[in-house]
């Protein structure tokens, strides 16, 4: 907090009011509704409802498809985060070393930030279209029996690839800035001390980037959890056999397509609990870093 602050009774409320108003109407109220809804069995059209305590949660937690989706979500998120971080770190290190064309490379690698998830999903979907997709044909011509329509692992590969592709740019931007923030004197000293580029990276550069990496890990996990909805909805739609449905996608499918509001709300509440853990973690970390 600031050491010096205004002491004023009305002004801060005036300034914070618009935000609080919008949040109350469009966040708190609907969120409370979602929680309340999770304790109800209600028909889709809202003509009748009954309070059932934790019935919805029991049904969700005991369903095989939810556990499967939860497991997939965790594996998917970790893989997306780790792979996209690794690729972008690798590219950022090289881009940081390059002198000629540095700016062009930066531009060529960062623009992907602006791509909408459904756009990424559609592109991926086309590339892997069995009748005309180039990647689909390429994989099969190399002798893989690649078939993401039927094979769960292949389908997971497709969504992970799309999600990684979409996320590399963001990570790249952060890593490149982080690298450029390392004082040149440190880098030069390191070059003298240590001839091998690889060792230099692991002993000096990477530790200096650790806070950025950790921050990105959290950002990427959140991304894989929520923002991949658009990717999945226009690529695999959770198939085959629900093998690529993340928890958020499942909330949508059960609540909207399936018209089971109670069950879907219970899933939302479970998600909310998971996200709170992740967010508190992230927040405490950022706070701590600021105090360094």
């Amino acid at each position, binding site marked *: 907090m600031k050491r010096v602050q205004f002491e004023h009774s009305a002004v801060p409320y005036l300034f914070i009011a618009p935000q609080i108003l919008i949040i109350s109407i469009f966040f708190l109220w609907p969120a409370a509704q979602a929680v309340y809804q999770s304790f109800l069995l209600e028909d889709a059209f809202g003509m*009748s409802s009954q309070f059932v305590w934790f019935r919805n949660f029991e049904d969700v937690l005991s369903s095989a498809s939810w556990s499967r989706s939860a497991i997939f979500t965790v594996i998917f998120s970790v893989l997306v985060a780790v792979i996209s971080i690794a690729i972008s770190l690798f590219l950022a290190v090289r881009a940081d070393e390059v002198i000629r064309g540095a700016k062009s490379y930066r531009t060529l690698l960062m623009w992907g930030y602006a791509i909408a998830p459904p756009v990424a999903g559609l592109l991926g979907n086309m590339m892997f279209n069995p009748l005309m997709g180039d990647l689909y044909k390429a994989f099969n011509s190399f002798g893989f029996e690649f078939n993401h*329509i039927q094979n769960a692992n292949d389908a997971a590969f497709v969504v992970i690839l799309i999600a990684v592709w979409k996320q590399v740019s963001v990570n790249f931007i952060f890593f490149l800035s982080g690298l450029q923030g390392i004082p040149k004197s440190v880098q030069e000293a390191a070059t003298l001390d240590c001839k091998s580029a690889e060792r230099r990276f692991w002993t000096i550069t990477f530790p200096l980037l650790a806070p950025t990496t950790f921050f990105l890990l959290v950002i990427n996990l959140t991304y894989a959890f929520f923002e991949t909805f658009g990717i999945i909805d226009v690529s695999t739609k959770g198939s085959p056999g629900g093998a690529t449905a993340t928890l958020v996608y499942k909330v949508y499918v059960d609540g909207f397509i399936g018209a089971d509001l109670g069950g879907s709300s219970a899933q939302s509440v479970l998600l909310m609990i998971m996200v709170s853990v992740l967010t508190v973690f992230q927040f405490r970390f950022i706070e701590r870093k600021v105090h360094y």
Partner: protein
Amino acid sequence: MFRKTLMAAAAVFALGNTAEAATEITWWHAMDGALGGVVDQITADFNASQSDYHLVAVNKGGYEDTMTAGIAAFRAKNQPNIIQIFDAGAATIINAKGAVKPVQDLLEENNVKFDINDYIPGVRYFYADSDGKMIGMPFNSSTPLLYYNKEALAKAGVDVPKTWQEFEEAAPKLKEAGYIALAQSHSPWIFFENFMSRHNLQMATANNGYDSTDVEILYNNEALKDHWQHVKDWKDAGYYGYYGRAWGANQDAFVQQQVAMWIGSSGSFGGLRKSAQFDFGTSTLPYWKGVGDAPKSTFIGGASLFAFSGHSAEEDAGVAAFFQFLTKPETQYYWHKETGYVPITNAAYELAKKDGYYKESPDAEVGIQQLSEEGGDWTKGYRLGFYVQIREVIYREVDKIMNGEETVDAAFNTIEEEANGLLKRFNDTYSN
């Protein structure tokens, strides 16, 4: 906001004094592509035919998107007058007591003559309640048909198979001729629901779900499992192409002539006529000779129109007027001809015959003939809650059967268990 206001202002100017009396009614539908164009034409014709009402038809995406949008809008008290709900969603809307106005009541209240026997047998009771009162107005009514590539069959020297036994004889010859024999576009609808109907097998307890929401599914039976074991064997032998759950991907394989025969909807006829660059014919859905008492008529598929409650009497009268227009033989005949969906009234069917339409394209009659085949105890339809999710379960387990992840037995056990769990949830939700 600004643009909306501007557009509203423009609209007021444009309509000016002429349209002041017309009551606007809205219709959300799931017909896109070529079908959407036909819907727009029917809407325009209705608006031109009278001046009391102005109908606005809006495409809300696919069947599921439309239903979702309708539910959200109803809860927000912003529902359209008419919504198109597909077969699998019928239980959800019919069991939500008070959400819709039964079409039979609506018509009678507005002095439109209604006799359920005017409708062809296959569609009469599918969207009716257990007392036989019609709740939803059948609209795009379809049935699964076998489409075949004439050239491919000629090349292999085989006839169109009427039964699966005949198919098994034809398939190796088609393979030799360079084709995958068969693909189909909708496993739950074609190879589950209509399999039961075609063989006159009971699909669920409580009269296929019409009598109560307290039901159990009867899919886990030998006949259906045996069929799927065959499908899996065909796939492994290269006689059956499985392009995933997407409707379009399986149809594309037929259009691209990789697959010699394809089972789709009678409603696919119009679109195929435009996209397929080869001569194709249609035939009835094959059945297993000796299983159940096949062949019986299939279920009606597709969707129906429901009139949401909560609108003024004036608007409801407009809905009734539109339904009356929609069931006119001329409208039905036009719809049938353009899309391939079957005409829903006897009068429209007669009109099509009289007009010589089937002489000129006999393939267009196959669908309605199939629906007019002899019915049995279990061919009337089904009414199962959360059936949209049950179809999801089926899709998922079919994926697993096809990729060899699960045996047919295991998959059917899962289907039975999960479907019954969903039906129980539905019963608990709707029975009080």
